[in-house]
């Protein structure tokens, strides 16, 4: 989830700061710059982009954030606080992982 937040934040910053910025975000962000900003190796970055697209949080071509992705960015801190407070990690973590 943290990585989703990092990538979406990077896309958002990249679109806003882009020279050919358009208010509707239609210009899209440059994937290589987003990858650098989110500090991920290319294969990992590509995999997470696919996940984000599967969850309808980004559009790949051009690279931009959907309404659902924006909602996630807005809610991220509350969700992270909830996860921390409940003492849970990710839902596919094993019980052993959760005890750590």
């Amino acid at each position: 989830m943290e990585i989703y937040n990092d990538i979406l934040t990077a896309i958002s910053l990249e679109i806003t700061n882009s020279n050919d910025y358009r208010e509707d975000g239609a210009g899209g962000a440059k994937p290589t710059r987003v990858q650098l900003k989110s500090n991920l190796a290319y294969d990992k970055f590509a995999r997470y982009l696919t996940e984000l697209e599967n969850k309808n949080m980004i559009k790949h071509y051009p690279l931009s954030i959907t309404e659902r992705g924006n909602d996630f960015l807005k809610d991220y801190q509350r969700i992270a606080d909830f996860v921390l407070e409940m003492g849970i990690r990710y839902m596919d973590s094993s019980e052993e992982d959760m005890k750590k």
Partner: protein
Amino acid sequence: MVPDSTEDNKVNYYPMKFIDQMERNKHMVLLYDSTEYAYWIISRYFLNGLENSESCILVTADKPEIIEEQLAKEGINVNLYKKKHSLRVYQIEKSDDNKHDALATLKQIREDATKGMKPPYRFVGRTITETETKVGMELGLVLEKTGHEHFDEFDCSQMCYYDISKIESSMRQKWISGLLKNHHYVIYASKPDKAVAFETALLEDEEAL
């Protein structure tokens, strides 16, 4: 913890927008540490359904009059909607002894609770009443898992609610993770700065699959 129940505070309560925009036929879990906040959510969820000609049923082991009073306090015209057969507080037995055949139990409750009502249905409630012991929590997880696996067959929206301040503490992590795995949405009804609602799929770690 008693919330400030002014209308403004309710309207601006963080999960309300999520409740208003949620899709139909979703299985959600409401975790709460304050009954008052829980009723804000339940009442809004019911009001949205009632205004949309859906039938709303709250399944509980408590006395219906107590629940009806709470719903009325939150602005639902209980008597009117009861007369129209679009609102019902359905009482189930307190004992969980006869609930081991999970699917049969869920189907029976649904059938009995909706008699004389018209679909689409909006449920609030939980089948297992005992969440303060390990045995009760484990049985609850089995029922939730079965319910979620067969959720499409029930053709309804369902909000399961749990008071997390009362749960048996050694099973807390496993139990909450289990609940999240077996619902589409989670709503956390707590103080305004902590309350949140989101799709549980966001917590799935796809890379680990």
